[in-house]
């Protein structure tokens, strides 16, 4: 791999470093704490991701496109919407796990709209989180937020699907990595 390609691949990490380093030096106490937090965060993320990627690798090789596309693809209609909502809200775990899952589903033929419904539901409609919210915030707060989020997830997924052009779709389906 050439130097330029390496730089291109890592430029997002370098950009993050260019943001965090000056902040760390400007606020030394926070900078020192951030170094400690970095260790904890690396341990957490690296603890979760290996089995996620292995399961996605298995899913990718064993489950053929024909098993996914009819249920979540362009022609899946309301059933596809409902399934995407269910899969997203039945999940547990942080949002950064949803992205690789969504990408594999997308490559297996799920529609862009359903993928963004899935990500939206994962982010804000997770069932365990909602129960915890009701407990803490009460029914008026929890139910109204959930209802508003439900409408928003559907609307935003529909709009995202509308706004993304052919080029964006091609990039999304090209597989991860080289677009960074």
């Amino acid at each position, binding site marked *: 791999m050439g130097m330029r390609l390496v730089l291109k*691949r890592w*430029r*997002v*990490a370098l950009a*993050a470093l260019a*943001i*965090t380093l000056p*902040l760390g030096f400007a606020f030394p106490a*926070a*900078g*020192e*704490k*951030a*170094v400690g*937090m*970095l260790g904890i*965060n690396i341990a957490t993320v690296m*603890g*979760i*991701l*290996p*089995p*996620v*990627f*292995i*399961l*996605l*690798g*298995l899913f*990718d*090789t064993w489950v053929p496109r024909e098993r996914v596309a009819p249920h979540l693809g362009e022609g899946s209609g309301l059933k596809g919407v409902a399934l995407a909502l269910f899969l997203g809200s039945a999940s*547990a*775990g942080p*949002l*950064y796990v949803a*992205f*690789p899952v969504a*990408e594999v589903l997308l490559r297996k033929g799920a529609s862009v709209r359903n993928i963004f419904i899935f990500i*939206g539901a994962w*982010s*804000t409609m997770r069932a365990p989180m909602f129960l*915890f*919210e009701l407990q*803490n*915030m009460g*029914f008026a*707060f929890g139910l*109204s*937020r959930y209802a*508003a989020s439900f409408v*928003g997830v559907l*609307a*935003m997924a529909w709009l*995202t699907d509308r706004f*993304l052009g052919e080029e*964006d779709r091609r990039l*999304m389906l090209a597989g991860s*990595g080289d*677009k*960074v």
Partner: protein
Amino acid sequence: MTWFLYLAAAGGLAISAFFSPGKTKMSLLKAWKSFINVLPALIAMLLLVSIMIALLPERLIARLIGSESGIWGQFLASLIGSATLIPAFVAFPMAKVLMQHGAGAAQMAVFVSTLMMVGVATAPLEASFFGWRATILRNGMAYFYSFLVGYVVFGAVTIWA
């Protein structure tokens, strides 16, 4: 939760290896390749999350979003909610206590809504999968929609009370 993932992965690999060692090897290779592909974005996320937690500890967040009210309070809550990555089991009890001390329902709703839907720190990772255009589109819409969520929740809580 994590132990379950490891159990599922180990079980999946065992079953897969029983039926086809070749496909199992291919699965592991794919897993490794996708991991290497997201590594730069993952490191970017870890750096951003770590500095954000250090710069904005929970106590400071609580003070900032608990005291400001009105549209300025919602704006501040939306910025903090977008920039930070706080798990729900911390965010909801915090919002509950803040509301008991007089913080507005709209601010709290905007805060938890942006916290869940908008992620500045996770944006590089999201973009590595879906491209920057889709990432900015999703996060941007979710950011503005969170204010609407704030008004809906404010209305519901006001009527309920």
